[in-house]
């Protein structure tokens, strides 16, 4: 090869390797810096994406024709030539990974014993153009980041010949067709209701030096970048519509449809709902950053509960504002979805679904009140603190479950925050313990969502175990410190994608304590905690004397208390010993050894000994062995046994009543 040719070849190769803007127009692209949907004069997040979408919904076929213009800002610090997109609705096909996992383990009470064609969902890209680089429809490739299922079509990837330079922009123009399933995973239709969730091609997140765009799994949720959404939804004119963001337009079309437009800022998803039956109830919450319009969309049968919904929502928002930080958006839409649909209890930015029934007593907080609290909590732990729900499900669900216990306790009282009905009580933390107890050691908390042993382990660990682990942590560092730590964590990480260590280090920093011993066991380990009072004993010091007569307050006793660590989880614990003269003694044990014995010489006998007398340790697997009394108290057991006997007798009578 001659030198001249070599030089030309080298020059061409160098040019090809250089990052190139998609085209000249790309230099004029930008993500809007508008602030009309938030109570802030400046954008709140580093906006990476701008979605401009139009969608026409066919209410008869439950399908949708959509166009999407996605502007992406490359903030990765390096040229990008590959872009993955989620096509979530393709999960609802018999051979998808989501369905394989759902069939194997069940998901959200669905077992998929037989395949129902109503469960079919699809998200088909009709055309895919990269502005300035051409049409790539035929070059799209399905990829399978988490498994080898070639039949899964929930992630598609495009490779661009011209990389997008650091800080450059690229614009995608996509036409797509959606087929919604009968509600699955909180998206789809039921009768004439639809909830459009995960319905558009959504680009992955460049995170820690790589694309993060996981296959849609049966247990996991979502992960996306912050940005601006402008969406025009065309639906039949009889539909009542609600969606993420602020409604900015509502125009009737000559063909019997109407187009409703929404604008969202500093959000990372867009969902919408439509039904002819919704009845709207509006209210306002005075937030610390400005007024928030509460748009509550009720089912007609639940209309009488509208004020209760608004009251709970405002009370919850008040607690979050005071404890964790401000809610900055101008709207919050609360949807009461179609009864019997699988669309209840879901969170999207500024848009949540609740769920109630026509008969819900005031004292039953476990229904709509808890759901509203939980889903609003996700505005913080998912909506603004946008953790990776695929990889760190505990950071949205679990942290949210912890704050739920705090908020519900505050609203309804700690001992009856879930149920307070006709003498029956149930606390939120008790509910979390019930989640935690069946599988305390099956999986660690800090685990990819799709790699839990099974559906129960995912639910019990990410929700229940995380909540009781954080409640116990609160017991270790103090309630005020924990609240300050949560507040700091929120303010620091809102509108970002924090990691588990961001959270744990913030708690250590705010508390000023090295808590690795706890995190290593509770978050990164499967050790089970179970401390027990093994034995208590009081023996007269002069036991050997003949004719010894014990006299209360005069006879001296040698008393012993044995405390045992039955589980592998070790932590310092308090022990309280009560004597029959009313005296109480507190001991602090580091909990490292397998057991410890305390000995006392007093003119009093031991009445009881109790581990964790302030009931701060919520992760103890067995609360019944945490204490031991010298005197037998059969009353609690008799109470339960009496219930059992009554039920047995009633059953026997009913049987004889009908059969003989």
């Amino acid at each position, binding site marked *: 090869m001659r030198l001249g040719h070599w030089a030309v070849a080298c020059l061409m190769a160098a040019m090809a390797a250089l990052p190139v803007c998609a085209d000249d127009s790309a230099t004029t692209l930008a993500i809007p810096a508008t602030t009309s949907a938030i109570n802030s004069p400046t954008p709140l997040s580093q906006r990476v994406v701008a979605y401009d979408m139009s969608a026409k919904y066919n209410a008869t076929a439950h399908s949708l024709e959509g166009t999407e213009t996605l502007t992406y800002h490359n903030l990765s610090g390096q040229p990008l030539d590959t872009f993955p997109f989620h096509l979530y609705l393709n999960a609802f096909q018999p051979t998808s990974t989501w369905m394989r996992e759902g069939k194997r383990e069940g998901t959200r009470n669905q077992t998929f014993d037989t395949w129902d064609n109503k469960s079919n969902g699809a998200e088909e890209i009709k055309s895919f153009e990269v502005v300035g680089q051409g049409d790539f429809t035929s070059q799209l490739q399905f990829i399978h980041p988490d498994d080898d299922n070639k039949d899964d079509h929930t992630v598609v990837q495009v490779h661009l010949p011209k990389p997008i330079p650091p800080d450059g922009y690229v614009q995608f123009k996509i036409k797509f067709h959606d087929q919604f399933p009968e509600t699955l995973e909180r998206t789809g239709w039921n*009768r*004439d*209701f639809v909830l459009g969730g995960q319905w558009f091609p959504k680009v992955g997140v460049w995170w820690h030096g790589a694309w993060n765009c996981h296959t849609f799994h049966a247990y996991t949720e979502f992960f996306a970048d912050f940005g601006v959404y402008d969406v025009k939804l065309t639906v039949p004119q009889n539909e009542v519509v609600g969606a993420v963001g602020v409604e900015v337009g509502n125009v009737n079309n000559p063909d019997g449809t109407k187009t409703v437009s929404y604008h969202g800022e500093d959000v990372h998803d867009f969902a919408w709902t439509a039904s002819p*039956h919704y009845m709207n109830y509006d209210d306002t919450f005075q937030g610390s950053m400005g007024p928030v319009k509460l748009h509550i969309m009720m*089912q007609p*049968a639940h209309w009488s509960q509208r004020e209760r919904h608004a009251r709970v929502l405002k009370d919850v928002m008040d607690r979050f504002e005071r404890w964790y930080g401000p809610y900055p958006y101008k709207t919050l839409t609360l949807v009461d979805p*179609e*009864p*019997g649909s699988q669309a209840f209890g879901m969170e999207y930015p500024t848009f949540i679904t609740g769920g109630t*029934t*026509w*008969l819900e007593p005031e004292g039953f907080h476990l229904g709509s009140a808890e759901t509203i609290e939980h889903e609003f909590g996700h505005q913080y732990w998912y909506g603004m603190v946008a953790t990776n729900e695929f990889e760190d499900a505990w950071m949205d669900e679990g942290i949210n479950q912890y704050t739920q216990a705090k908020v519900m306790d505050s609203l309804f009282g700690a*001992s009856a925050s879930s*149920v307070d009905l*006709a*003498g*029956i*009580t*149930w*606390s939120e*933390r*008790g*509910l979390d*313990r*019930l989640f935690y*107890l*069946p599988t305390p050691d099956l999986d660690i908390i800090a685990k990819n969502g799709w790699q839990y042993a099974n559906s129960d382990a995912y639910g019990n660990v990410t929700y229940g175990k995380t909540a009781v682990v954080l409640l116990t942590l609160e017991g270790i560092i103090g309630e005020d410190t924990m609240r300050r730590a949560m507040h700091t964590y929120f303010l620091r990480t809102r509108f970002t994608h924090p990691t588990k260590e961001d959270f744990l280090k913030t708690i250590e920093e705010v508390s000023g304590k090295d808590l690795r011993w706890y995190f290593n066991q509770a978050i990164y380990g499967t050790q089970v905690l179970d401390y027990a009072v093994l034995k208590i004993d009081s023996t007269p010091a002069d036991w050997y004397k003949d004719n010894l007569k014990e006299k209360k307050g005069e006879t001296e006793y040698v008393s012993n208390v044995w405390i045992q660590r039955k589980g592998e989880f070790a932590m310092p614990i308090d022990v309280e010993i009560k004597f029959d003269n009313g005296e109480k003694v507190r001991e602090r044990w580091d909990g490292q050894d397998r057991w410890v014995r305390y000995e006392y010489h007093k003119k009093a006998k031991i009445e*009881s000994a109790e581990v964790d007398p302030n009931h701060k340790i919520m992760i103890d697997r067995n*609360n*019944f*062995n*945490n*204490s*031991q*009394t010298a005197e*037998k*108290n*059969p*009353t*609690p*057991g*008799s*109470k*339960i*046994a*009496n219930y*059992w*006997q*009554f039920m*047995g*007798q*009633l*059953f*026997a*009578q009913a*049987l*004889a009543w*009908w*059969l*003989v």
Partner: protein
Amino acid sequence: MSEHRNLISAGGNIAGRNKRYVVWFYILNLACGWIGAIAASRSIHALTDHSLYASRLLRSFDLEVFFELLGRPEIGPIGKFAAPANMMAILFLVASLVIMPGVLLGYASDHRISRDEFYRACGRNVWRFVRLFVFFLIIAGIISGILFSGLNALSNAADKTSNERLPYLVQLFGTIFILIILTVLRIWFDLAQTDVVLQDQNAVRKSIAGAFRKTRHNLVPLLASYLAVAVVALAILVSGIVLWNQIVPPYSVLGAFIVSQATLLLLLAMRFWQRAVAVAFQVREITEPVIEETNSVPVFAAVS
């Protein structure tokens, strides 16, 4: 209306004159319930008797402690405790089947029958009652199977509508309807049992056929009487539970025991009242026989 009242009051008089049967059955029911609960009681006491945590159960019905108790391996799956309770329920059923002829004879008699008469009636009719029981199971099984299938179909259809209350209402009224139908069957077989005892009828099919005719011809007064007593029974059950919940302090096991057992005793009395209604009806039928049914030979006179 007066006919219904007559039957209800006649039944009430009979049951009132023979309260001892209710007491015996109650004692049997209590004993069966107590034995069926021994295993559960022991396991529960082993966990709770020396635990301060369990004392939370005395402040309210604390579901956290209750569910945690049920979840303990020492307690195990609830089925473990359900088995002895179920066995005792079946034992109570069998005992009812065996003893009931004596009760019916006592009800039909205008004097207190001797122990000998009572047990003889039980012994003579045990196999007949077993046959009646089997017939009832077959007929009630088929009819309730058909009715519950229909109700399920209706409920599924109601589930598909957007009216959220409809499935509840369908279930509620459907179940009430089925219970009424089953009550009619119960009336039929209560009359058949009474007929077998009072007529010393060995061919139970004749009693079944006769009772069917009587039920058909007198459905309104019989059903109204049975339903009236059933409504009283339901009111007793609801009142008992409300009393238990509202009056009895959560720490009072004795109070809970007294209210719960009083409720059970009264419930049992209601069933015996229904039995007495059937006996009163049969006695009336036998003492005022219908022309076409005179071929049967009443033995009622022998015991009256």
